[in-house]
């Protein structure tokens, strides 16, 4: 997808004006945190498991070359073909050449953030290969020509009637008078249409939630079961995964699985968790003849060596989105690229380049909720602050108020001068307030007084009053 992260402000304004989105987000940002809390309350060891998850990921990241090589060796031994790709363009070409070699016309896909990151759909399409999303939400937005607004619930911004309308326009072979009022009816229709696609596809494309170095397996989780049909029906399976997805052992994978669904959807575990190791074996009645794994860097090694390494612990659960009050206001599209919410505010500048996403790390109140719920304890606000620090020297929204900030700091660093200057300014402001208690508008303060009144100061500074009190009773 083309990134619009640089238009964040416009995107956000647009989203805020969308009443239907507001409704969807209100229900969603209430439901998911409640479900997560409920399921965590049943697991007293949750925080200890988080610590273990952090330890596992930190260990892998510190020894990433070792575990990648071990993974490669085991996966290759099981018959998988590994393709190392430096960037999105290499990954796209690799996937396309696999499709061409297979004579593929249709590719079924299960939801993959890496697939979105490398914009594989547009690329395959422009090269004569038809990609079909099979995750229900992804399918809906694919036929609408949109992009996901949430990593778990891609069509969270839509309502049933929107989807019904889309299906009527898209599925023209079906009777026009059919009922599509109930979500169940929409689901049945999608199932029927996609069943045909599953069976007809030549290549199946999935992501991978983890790569297991011990066995050379990929781990894929879904609730719909679509990834399993994508993996087992076509004759070729391609999994795209970024480097940091590797974990040492099956036991380590188990630990992370205990965190993933609980943090994501508030389930103990997703309905389907699949460990896939190489292609079809002798005697197997089903499974793909070829199994390809695309290992993608696309900016990860750069993050690994810098102050954003912690971000590579991310397991894409979406908890930071689900709990973010900014995301709750503007939804995922405003962030302008694949990754939204707090994780997107760190990942997008890191992967696309800071100037493609200048606003993102600034559009946070640092309320800290994201770090509080992150199963991998990623210090998201700290990393957003790092990005702001870079902008402060190189330019960007963080530097925008630099002049005013510098003037304020000039005074704040000179306490005696500060006391005199603030006493005067506050006295003047209180005088302007004229006992009304607040301002509806005031010159130069429209950013404050646009949405809210400005309470008037009481009139004297505490410092001045305290000095008086000291003089009265030493």
């Amino acid at each position: 997808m083309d990134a619009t992260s640089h238009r964040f402000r416009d995107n956000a304004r647009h989203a805020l004006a969308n009443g239907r989105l507001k409704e969807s987000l209100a229900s969603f940002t209430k439901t998911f945190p409640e479900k997560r809390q409920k399921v965590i309350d049943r697991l007293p060891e949750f925080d200890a498991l988080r610590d273990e998850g952090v330890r596992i990921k930190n260990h892998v990241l510190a020894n990433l070359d070792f575990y990648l090589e071990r993974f490669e060796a085991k996966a290759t031994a099981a018959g998988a073909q590994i393709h190392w790709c430096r960037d999105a363009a290499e990954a796209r070409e690799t996937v396309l050449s696999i499709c061409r070699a297979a004579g593929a016309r249709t590719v079924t896909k299960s939801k993959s953030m890496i697939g979105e990151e490398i914009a594989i759909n547009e690329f395959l399409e422009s090269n004569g290969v038809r990609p079909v999303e099979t995750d229900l939400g992804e399918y809906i937005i694919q036929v609408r020509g949109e992009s996901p607004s949430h990593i778990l619930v891609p069509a969270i911004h839509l309502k049933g009637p929107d989807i019904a309308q889309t299906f009527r326009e898209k599925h023209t072979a079906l009777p026009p008078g059919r009922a599509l009022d109930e979500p169940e009816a929409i689901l049945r229709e999608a199932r029927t249409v996609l069943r045909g696609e599953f069976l007809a596809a030549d290549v199946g494309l999935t992501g991978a939630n983890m790569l297991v170095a011990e066995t050379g397996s990929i781990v894929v989780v879904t609730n719909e079961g679509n990834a399993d049909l994508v993996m087992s029906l076509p004759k070729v399976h391609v999994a795209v995964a970024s480097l940091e997805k590797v974990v040492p052992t099956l036991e380590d994978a188990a630990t992370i699985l205990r965190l993933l669904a609980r943090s994501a959807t508030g389930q103990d575990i997703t309905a389907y968790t699949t460990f896939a190791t190489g292609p079809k074996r002798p005697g197997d009645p089903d499974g793909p003849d070829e199994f390809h794994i695309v290992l993608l860097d696309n900016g990860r090694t750069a993050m690994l060596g810098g102050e954003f390494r912690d971000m590579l612990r991310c397991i894409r659960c979406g908890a930071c989105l689900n709990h973010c009050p900014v995301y709750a206001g503007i939804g995922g599209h405003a962030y302008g690229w694949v990754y939204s919410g707090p994780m997107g505010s760190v990942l997008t500048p890191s992967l696309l380049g800071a100037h493609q996403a200048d606003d993102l790390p600034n559009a946070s109140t640092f309320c800290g909720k994201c770090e509080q719920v992150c199963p991998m304890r990623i210090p998201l606000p700290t990393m957003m602050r790092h990005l702001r620090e870079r902008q402060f020297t190189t330019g960007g929204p963080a530097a925008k108020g630099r002049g005013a900030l510098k003037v304020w700091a000039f005074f704040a660093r000179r306490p005696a001068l500060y006391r005199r200057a603030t006493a005067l300014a506050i006295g003047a402001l209180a005088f302007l307030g004229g006992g009304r208690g607040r301002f509806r508008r005031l010159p130069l303060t429209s950013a404050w007084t646009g949405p809210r009144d400005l309470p008037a100061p009481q009139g004297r500074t505490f410092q001045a009053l305290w000095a008086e009190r000291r003089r009265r009773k030493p």
Partner: protein
Amino acid sequence: MSARDDILSAVRLATGGGAALGRSAVARAFDERLAKPTANLIPERGKGTPAELLVRFIAESEAAAATVARVAGRSGIPAAVADYLAAHGLPRRVRAAPALKDVPWPEGIGIAVDYGKADADTPVGLSCAVSGIAETGTLVLPSGPATPTTLNYLPDVHIVVLETASIVGSYEDAWSRFREEAAGGDFMPRTVNWITGPSRSADIELILLLGVHGPRRLHILLLDGQDA
């Protein structure tokens, strides 16, 4: 340089990799772990006596919208399948895993049974799990010549046979069983499916719907005995 070499050297540059102090110790520790697998923290709900684990497995799988029936032994499977299909008015056409070929289907039970992988229109899949994991009510189904994976996904109704004795506490316990079976050899099947309840989605307005692409119903037959 190849992309592989480029990426690996970039990783090493970023981490002090390859030549980094303690790297050989990391490799040694990893090999030792593989030789003698060690679990991380296992939550209490993944532990207990067999009786406790059985109760928990049933409760957790039912919480995930699966249904459970107790069956005395393998010979009881046909009647249990028949009961379930009849109770829900489901098609009496079953595609079973070849691993279940020893189950005797009585004449006159009125169910058409055949064996092999699933087709697009297979209404009922009957397969067998090697373990049930109590901590989340999860079934473990490996692929193999006698256990096609498509049976787990294509049919609208999925019935799974699980021996009560195969219920374990945790995910780690399930992996231990694979390793024990393989006795030191390569233990990992092509595919291991962990299945917890039927297929589901909340993609439309967060309303939970069952049977999106995989089965709408998951029914577990718990075999308490081994008779044939």
